[in-house]
């Protein structure tokens, strides 16, 4: 457990004025990019997602702390993933739909049309842009802060918010438990053959012990929370206020304006 790679609870504090994303309210970071993320699902061109990808990268590179892990993610992982997805989708597109476009590659009787490439890479760029926009908030917000902001500004009941946070601690525990259960079943010789159906049947066998352990653990956690007065009052002391300031409004307005500008200028829904 001590080797957790990412600590979702680690506090995230700006170390310089440049790293402004850490100081924004978590909800502002969600509200500013959410409309663009939703609209991006419905675009089909190349330019619009590319523009949003650039916008998101610019925000992250300026406003977040540049660690080697972040650079690896932005400069290697995401681009490689987009290329793989782009090529994959290009091959998958029904050639009959795009056979009026110029051929890009011919191997024997098989042709890869530029139209297919365009569709494939539009999809890849779209996914990349949506992911990058999500990372603007995701890389610069800690779990507890998001919960606190939801309670303080969105009036989510604290009983829900803090219980969700507590439940988050279950995840690594269950991962470990699952690996032990799998080893135990393997030792018993419960193989059940190869293939997807045997695998599903095996997986079903893991669920009962996993759930039994999970329910028992959850009950214990609930008792421990009760014993520490969780739910005693309609509100609880908040040590960390996550304020919603003018700059959060400015951030939302600016990003929404930028998104609107991109959509208007490149208007991706004009009839072909």
């Amino acid at each position, binding site marked *: 457990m001590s080797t*957790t790679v990412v600590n*979702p609870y680690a506090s995230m504090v700006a170390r310089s004025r440049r790293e402004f994303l850490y100081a924004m309210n978590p909800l502002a970071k969600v509200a500013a990019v959410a409309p663009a993320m939703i609209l991006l699902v419905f675009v089909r061109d190349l330019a619009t997602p590319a523009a949003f990808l650039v916008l998101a990268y610019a925000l992250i590179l300026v406003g977040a702390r540049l660690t080697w892990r972040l650079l690896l993610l932005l400069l290697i992982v995401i681009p490689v993933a987009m290329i793989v997805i782009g090529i994959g989708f290009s091959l998958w597109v029904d050639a009959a739909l795009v056979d009026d476009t110029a051929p890009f590659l011919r191997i024997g009787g098989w042709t890869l049309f530029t139209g297919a490439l365009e569709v494939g890479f539009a999809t890849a760029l779209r996914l990349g842009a949506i992911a990058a926009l999500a990372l603007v908030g995701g890389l610069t917000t800690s779990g507890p802060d998001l919960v606190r902001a939801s309670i303080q500004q969105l009036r989510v009941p604290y009983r829900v918010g803090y219980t969700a946070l507590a439940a988050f601690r279950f995840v*690594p525990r269950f991962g470990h438990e699952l690996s032990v259960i799998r080893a135990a079943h393997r030792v*018993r010789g419960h193989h059940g053959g190869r293939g997807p159906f045997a695998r599903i049947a095996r997986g079903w*066998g893991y669920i009962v012990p996993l759930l039994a352990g999970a329910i028992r653990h959850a009950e214990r956690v609930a008792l421990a929370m*009760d*014993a520490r*007065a*969780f*739910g005693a009052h309609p509100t609880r002391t908040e040590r960390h206020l996550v304020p919603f300031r003018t700059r959060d409004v400015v951030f939302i307005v600016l990003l929404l304006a930028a998104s609107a500008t991109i959509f208007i200028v490149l208007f991706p829904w004009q009839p072909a």
Partner: protein
Amino acid sequence: MRSSAPLLRVRDLTLTHADAAHPSPSDVSFDIAPGEVVLLLGPSGSGKSTLTLALNGLIPHALPATMTGTVEAGGIDSAHASTAALSTHVAMVFQDPDAQIVTGTVYDEVAFGPENLLLPLDEVSARAEDALRRVGLWQRRDENPDRLSGGGRQRLAIACALAMGSPLLVLDEPTANLDPQGIDDVYSALADVVAAGDRAILLVEHNLDAAMEFVTRTIVLDQAGTVAFDGPVDEILRGHTEELVAMGVWLPAATLTARMLRERGILSHDAPLPLTPEELAAALPAGGAHLQAGSTPVSQETAFSTDIRDLHRQLSQPPSDARPLIRARGLTVTRGRREILHSVDIDIEAGSLTAIVGANGAGKTTLIQALAGVVPPRKRQVDVDGLDPATASPRDLAARIGFVFQNPEHQFIAHTVFDELAHGLRLRHVSEAETAHRVRQMLGRFGLEHKADVHPFLLSGGEKRRLSVGTALITGPRVLALDEPTFGQDRARAAELLALLDALRREGTTIVIVTHDLQLVAEHATHTVVLADGRVHATGRTDDLFRDEHVFTTAGLRLPALQRVLAAHAGTTAS
């Protein structure tokens, strides 16, 4: 509140758990006054844990149980107040440290309770700082609790209880899930709390040796859940020793040892029974000659050696040439890029009960998993009864070595107890009649005849454990391997399992066990393998190894207090 008023007042309390036939505890009355440190004792099933849950109102408010009688904490009747309201009068520390942590940093965790109480900010931070300093975690306040050791997390749970500001702390088996180092950690923190004198404590604990140093009073429940004794701890334990043993109550290891020495006429019946290892050491005859008669749990068969060089010679001896049942040569195991076991040579004798011990991260579980083929080792490194686990199929391997996991539920794969036992035989294509016969035999052997058609998950904890051992034995293996089988269990269930293992060994089954309970090793294991940093640090007969504390301390282990005192005693009498 007047200082003479009791912190807790329990009157005629009877609790019946939702799925229990009989009430336990039953008709219990007692008070706890400020400053008292009370040890709650009783045999398994007497309702100790159930009683603790009623003290802060979790029963009847959060758990299904019928309750008669009254519990008053700080003058508040628990039947009419919420758990939250009672939490400022009674704070709880539970057994499993992982099930009590709900936030992401040590500081947030301690502040969680005071925040729920809606205390002002400066009060929250004052309490959090005070509580963390008292358990020695202030320096680590910004860390994720996952990074603390088991003992550290349980100390954190104590800090959280302190931060509630309640004058009474209730601890239910707080060290049952911890290794020896963790137990020491928790007890040094508790001793500090007791020394400060501002909190009364009610402790349910099986590890009595550590608790004896500061407990002032004991309440003993009998099998029926009624109060059998209530009074100063030394008076009760010394004055009613035989009754307590007959009731199935656990006594300090020093007391049990002294009692045995008395029976053999080594200790006088006139002297009071010792309760702590130090008292036992003081009571032991100065000559040490009597101990050489071989009457302590440490040296059941051989005399105390007086020459430590002799021991080391023995340790460094090449493995004996008598053919061992399990044999590992140059066993090297890597996980990912990290090498966990480095060229380990081990021989496990047929008919032995061999314990593998070592500090956290020494590779104990990795070793037993490699020996049993749970994680197949490399070829030609391990030989189990003539079979190489690296290449053998699970079916063949199961006929040579049975493996029992820490949590029995993990290995259940059938829908009835009968099918669970039959599984191993059906895999081997044993005829249905023969299967039924052998399963019936096994059901009888483990007292599960009436449960044949029950789903394994619906068995009681002890029955699940017996079933898991039964499934490992059904194919008739000569070796049974168990990974930490007593971890997180109460002492009674652990004792039941160990009695079963002792019986199996007498019948000729070779047993290999991973454990961190050195008291258990001293009492039950014939041979011990001490691992340190993925290497064999020492191996030999348990009696020989336990004579030299050095063997364990250099491996990062601590002998139980009793063994430490006895080893020291043997050392002083020898010189």
